[in-house]
């Protein structure tokens, strides 16, 4: 339990991806089975153990200490699990040989009822140190929240075993904690485990951005063109009654989309874009990305949401036709099969992403500039001869995104970065003008921490340090007046309405595209500009 706790403590404070990978890979190397596999499952969210409610923990601590002192402590720390882990003192100190391992804890909790679990937790709290108590409490309350995605954990496994991450993604859904056969294979003491489960994930094929030198390669004989839909990439696979909806990284998201899964009556594997419709009084129309977000990151989905934001999949590739693996066939052939395949599917849940007819590259450039629907974020160009291969090979599939949106905003706050950037003010909050023209004020509309060069970072940092008006911990507010301040040109991919932001808008992928030292702040954009853009993109004609 202590090693697991030490790992969590480090992970939660390590900002860099490489640092996290190293910590995880070292842990997998140094920790025996079954603990390492259980830790992995805890991180990927695949551990199924009895949950303890925060109220039960409060009751436990109330038996042990003065409530006033606990209140002072909780007030200071702010996190219940952390407070309890720190204030807990054992009735009598126990010897170190009675310290439970992660395996002991998980095995006991798998069999426990919720009320048994509380008593076990109490006993373990007496046996563990503060750091391990914290890890235990996070484990039993079901929220590690350590900034490590399942994807990153799989990357770390790949690094540890020196294999490609797609191999792990492909195997993943046939495996269960504590993953001993997986670790044995990664340590090269056993053969690669056979994927025994039905409907496994197949690593997806990705595209590379189309850049100037490759424009000449694109012609109508060799490449098919499609719209690039701004939804989420999904793989739908159905085998002998087992139906799964995977994200592009192999996470099983079936539970969030029963309205799709219910209609997966086919045998085979489809690749496509998950979108949501938005119902108004008379008809359904495709929703914006903001509507899709209503359906994402939810454990369960309500009947109301199923009705107001029904999901459907716009399919664009076929990987398995029935039991037949057709990934090695050329795209043109797969496409013909796909068109026939779609005919048997429920039309309100599945439709075909159409091919766009074109003759010249200039036609494509025009389409890209004027897409017929706001949910389109550019074009996809696919070579007719290309096989479906995992990863991101350059050439067979290109994405050609439309130009980003651009606004001029004023720098208002800067925050110190992390890791390599901890001595730089590198996270920038920017604002636009609002209120009467004669007496405007700034309202923050977003935050960006990339897009600039190292040299520009130094200039930005110097500007922040020389123009600080106030400090709040790691944050500084900087001078932002009509005639004095710094204008940032901000590029972004789209806008959503937001209740959390005072401005009412939230940007997608904002980044600094240029520093406008030449521009006085008063000439930066106004909020009305963003509001107009929001109307255009949210309400398709």
């Amino acid at each position, binding site marked *: 339990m202590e090693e697991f706790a030490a790992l969590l403590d480090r992970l939660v404070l390590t900002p860099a991806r490489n640092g996290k990978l*190293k910590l995880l890979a070292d842990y997998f190397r140094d920790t025996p089975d079954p603990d390492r596999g259980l830790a992995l499952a805890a991180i990927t969210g695949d551990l199924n153990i009895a949950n303890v409610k925060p109220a039960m923990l409060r009751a436990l601590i109330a038996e042990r200490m003065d409530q006033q002192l606990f209140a*002072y*402590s909780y007030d200071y720390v702010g996190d219940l699990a*952390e407070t309890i882990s*720190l204030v807990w003192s054992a009735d009598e100190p126990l010897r170190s040989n009675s310290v439970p391992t992660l395996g002991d804890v998980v095995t006991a909790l798998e069999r426990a009822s919720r009320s048994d679990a509380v008593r076990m937790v109490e006993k373990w709290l007496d046996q563990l140190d503060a750091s391990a108590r914290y890890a235990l409490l996070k484990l039993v309350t079901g929220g590690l929240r350590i900034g490590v995605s399942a994807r990153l954990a799989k990357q770390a496994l790949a690094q540890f075993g020196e294999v490609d991450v797609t191999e792990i993604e492909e195997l993943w859904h046939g495996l269960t904690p504590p993953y001993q056969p997986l670790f044995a294979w990664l340590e090269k003491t056993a053969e690669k485990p056979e994927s025994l489960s039905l409907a496994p994930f197949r690593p997806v094929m990705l595209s590379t951005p189309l850049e100037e030198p490759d424009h000449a390669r694109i012609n109508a004989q060799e490449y098919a063109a499609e719209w690039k839909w701004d939804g989420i990439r999904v793989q739908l696979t159905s085998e002998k009654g087992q139906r799964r909806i995977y994200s592009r990284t192999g996470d099983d998201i079936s539970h969030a989309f029963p309205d799709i899964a219910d209609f997966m009556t086919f045998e085979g594997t489809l690749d496509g874009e998950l979108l949501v419709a938005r119902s108004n009084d008379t008809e359904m129309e495709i929703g914006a990305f903001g509507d899709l977000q209503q359906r994402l990151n939810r454990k369960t989905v309500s009947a109301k949401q199923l009705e107001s934001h029904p999901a459907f999949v716009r399919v664009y590739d076929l990987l398995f036709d029935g039991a037949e693996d057709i990934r090695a066939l050329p795209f043109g052939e797969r496409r013909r099969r796909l068109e026939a395949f779609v005919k048997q599917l429920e039309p309100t849940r599945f439709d075909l992403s159409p091919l766009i007819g074109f003759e010249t590259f200039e036609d494509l450039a025009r389409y890209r500039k004027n897409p017929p629907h706001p949910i389109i974020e550019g074009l996809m160009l696919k070579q007719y001869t290309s096989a479906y291969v995992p990863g991101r090979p350059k050439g067979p599939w290109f994405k050609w995104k439309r130009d980003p949106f651009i606004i001029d905003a004023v720098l208002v706050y800067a925050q110190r970065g992390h890791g390599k950037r901890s001595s730089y003010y590198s996270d920038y909050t920017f604002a636009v003008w609002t209120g009467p023209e004669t007496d405007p004020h700034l309202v923050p509309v977003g935050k960006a921490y990339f897009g600039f060069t190292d040299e520009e970072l130094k200039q930005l940092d110097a500007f922040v340090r020389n123009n600080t008006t106030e400090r709040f911990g*790691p944050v500084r507010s900087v001078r932002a007046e009509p005639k004095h301040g710094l204008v940032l040109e901000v590029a972004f991919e789209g806008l959503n309405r937001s209740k959390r932001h005072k401005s009412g808008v939230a940007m997608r992928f904002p980044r600094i595209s240029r520093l406008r030292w030449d521009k006085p702040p008063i000439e930066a954009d106004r909020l009305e500009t963003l509001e107009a853009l929001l109307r255009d993109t949210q309400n398709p004609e």
Partner: protein
Amino acid sequence: MLKRPEELLRSTPAGLYSPAGDFYIDPIRPVDRALITHGHSDHARSGHRKVMATQQTLDIMALRYGADFAEETQTAELGKSTEVNGVTISFHPAGHVLGSAQIAVEKEGMRIVASGDYKRRADPTCLGFEPVACDVFITEATFALPVFRHPNSRDEIAKLLKSVEQFPERSHLVGAYALGKAQRVIRLLRDAGYDRTIYIHGALAKLCDYYETQGIKLGPLAPATIEKGSVADFAGAIVVGPPSAFLDRWARRFPDPVSCFASGWMRIRQRARQGGVELPIILSDHCDWDELTDTITELHPSQVWATHGREEALVRWCDLNGYAARPLHLVGYEDEGD
């Protein structure tokens, strides 16, 4: 016996003052006569006319403020009593940093111990705390919350060494206050068997040299400058400096640094996160909750005055455990100084 302890010591805007003896302890404004518990700059300020402190504290003040930091200085021998205007004064080790002392003041059978900052666990860089029986015990309350229980310092240093081994291509920047904490970190690293050169920020150089003259061996140290070498020299190195320096441009000379901070505050994860600390080292020169309450239990004073920090929790504990206690509102001491 004096009727009220406030006749012997009480808080004033300039600091803790003795009406009976006409002197101050750790005053925050320039005064005629000051008794200084230890050399941290919020306790030992310049500009007093007469200063009485241990020899080491006087030396440290001279290093920081120049040899003429006071018109007159008087060395306090530990454990020896002297009289100031009819008040008996004695200094006793506080275990906080090199030279630190508690100050006991006594008149007509009433004794108050102003402990300054103190800790109870072993520290290889200074003398250990000696309990002094008293009627009123003035205690710090920097970490006076039950959440603060400092772990074993050896284990904390082991965390740092493990990370150095795990990330040999990165440098480890350890933020530690220039007086006391920095030398303690270095000494603990040596005790753990780390014998490579430790690089130090310029602000630490004089104090580290001084510790050496006092018999505290710190091993090979070198300035953390790159004029002579290259950035790559710091790969795998441990660099110790004041925490403020690591947030400054100074830190940019190091390759992909792991920012570490040696402080009791690092017990709270959110504190570490807010400060951009990647590797917290929970190491304090102040008492934790158990040390504070154990000390009060051991001394069994008739009154406890709690100052700088979370007085309310300590006063609550005293109420629950039958000690008369009150917060002593002194201003000007930095809550963050650990």
